[in-house]
């Protein structure tokens, strides 16, 4: 029999045909039309509140959509974990559906598979280690205080534009060792990429052009630092300078300029709106629950646990994988060329793992969640991000103990590659 191109087959396969590919004899519930027609990045229902749809998806338990070239939806904790931990059968070459290919090549390290991935991962994880993060904490605390200070004595605050978005930009500019002032330049490009349009194709073009600008910026910066290394501020070596000094692989070679630029752009893009959205999401829920807020004001030592719980409650990232082998997930057989989308946000609400998953409980005995992924591509920035978020919450609760959501201006939320918050209006005075 002639081999069909598996990619084509995946795209063309209707639900009924792919249901025939089942192994293990599990009777799968028939996926309704809304799942077969689900655009996981733009669906209106998901934007409003993804959790009812996620709950339904877990019941199938593997959904199948024919949109975006065709993909399976992985929504239970065990299945998401199984996919993320299996870098042999699930490749990061395609992180989106439909797969997109950037002319500047695969993004390092996130779009690489082993063994290539390991070379970079070990090095990068070392830069943002728990130990480095501890030394970086006072800098971040200073940035948070600077951001909050102008609002002291005021009655209201739009949290995303005033705190959540600028914080990671400023913190990462220092962590990278960028020249002072450049954070604003890069922030400007980022705003340009995000503003103005909800047209997905226009956005894609804008983000490709910003990527080219960022690659140029970081190629110039790494070249300049290679020519003339700088002394680290406060004894903290910036990532750009650490890359310049790094020696990788068995032959202990220097990194090429285009490799360094590629790494910097991946890290820059991965570290900003993720952190901003998690901070925003966290504050959305706290601002709606004065009882939870009061507990954190009274006992800041609970903030660590509160954060983990809120990261479980809204684990924000959805990522795709390209299937490489014959593999079964959740009882469903998959073939090379198929695509899957893993929903960490749904894994966080899985009743098989968490008791009463739709309620917020800081004292929950099970603390684990998949918001930072798992397996080989586990987030390099998780230690830094956790610290930024904790320090921000500590300072906010110490400075504005009465904050609450402004009932007249409800927060704007979205779901897509990430679940996030666009605006959050807070009232700051005593109620």
């Amino acid at each position, binding site marked *: 029999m002639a081999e069909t191109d598996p990619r084509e087959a995946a795209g063309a396969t209707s639900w009924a045909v792919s249901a025939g590919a089942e192994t293990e004899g599990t009777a799968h519930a028939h996926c309704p039309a809304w799942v077969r027609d689900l655009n996981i990045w733009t669906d209106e229902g998901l934007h409003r509140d993804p959790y009812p749809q996620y709950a339904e998806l877990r019941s199938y338990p593997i959904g199948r959509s024919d949109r975006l070239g065709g993909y399976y939806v992985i929504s239970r904790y065990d299945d998401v*974990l199984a996919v993320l*931990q299996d870098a042999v059968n699930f490749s990061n070459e395609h992180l989106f559906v439909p797969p997109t290919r950037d002319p500047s090549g695969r993004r390092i390290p996130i779009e690489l598979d082993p063994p290539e991935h390991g070379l970079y991962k070990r090095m990068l*994880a*070392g830069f943002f*280690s*728990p*130990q480095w993060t501890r030394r970086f904490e006072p800098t971040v605390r200073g940035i948070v205080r600077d951001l909050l200070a102008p609002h002291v004595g005021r009655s209201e605050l739009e949290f995303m534009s005033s705190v959540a978005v600028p914080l990671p930009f400023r913190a990462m500019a220092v962590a990278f060792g960028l020249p002072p002032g450049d954070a604003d330049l890069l922030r400007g490009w980022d705003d340009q990429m995000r503003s103005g349009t909800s047209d997905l194709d226009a956005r894609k073009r804008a983000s490709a052009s910003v990527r080219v600008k960022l690659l140029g910026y970081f190629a110039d910066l790494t070249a300049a630092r290679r020519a003339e290394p700088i002394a680290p501020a406060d004894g903290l070596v910036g990532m750009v300078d650490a890359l310049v000094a790094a020696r990788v692989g068995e032959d202990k070679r220097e990194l090429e300029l285009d490799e360094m630029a590629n790494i910097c752009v991946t890290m820059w893009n991965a570290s900003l709106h993720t952190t901003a959205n998690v901070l925003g999401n966290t504050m959305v829920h706290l601002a709606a629950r004065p009882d939870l807020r009061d507990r954190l004001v009274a006992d800041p030592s609970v903030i*660590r646990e509160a954060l983990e719980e809120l990261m479980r409650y809204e684990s924000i990232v959805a990522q795709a994988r390209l299937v490489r082998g014959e593999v079964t997930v959740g009882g469903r057989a998959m073939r090379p060329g198929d695509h899957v989308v893993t929903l960490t946000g749904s894994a966080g609400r899985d009743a098989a793992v968490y008791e009463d998953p739709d309620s917020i409980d800081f004292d929950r*005995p*099970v*603390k*684990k*969640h*998949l918001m*930072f992924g*798992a*397996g*080989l591509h*586990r987030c390099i920035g*998780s*230690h830094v991000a956790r610290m930024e978020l904790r320090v921000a919450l500590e300072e906010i609760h110490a400075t504005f103990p009465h904050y609450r959501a402004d009932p007249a201006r409800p927060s704007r939320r979205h779901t897509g590659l990430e679940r996030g918050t666009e605006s959050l209006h807070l009232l700051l005075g005593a109620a």
Partner: protein
Amino acid sequence: MKVTVHADRCMGHAMCNAVAPEVYEIDDDGYNVMGTVEIEPDKEALARQGAAACPERAIEVTTD
């Protein structure tokens, strides 16, 4: 009670140490390399909490 940290599954989340530093040691980069250790009775609850905090399910608890 014993805990075994499976090094091949540990991806350096460092959550075991965040939840139960008295039981779980990590290296400078956040990875747990302690292998199998015997847990003193007064630390069993902590050890279990640390194991439950591992998103990778890399920590196995065994009782004899």
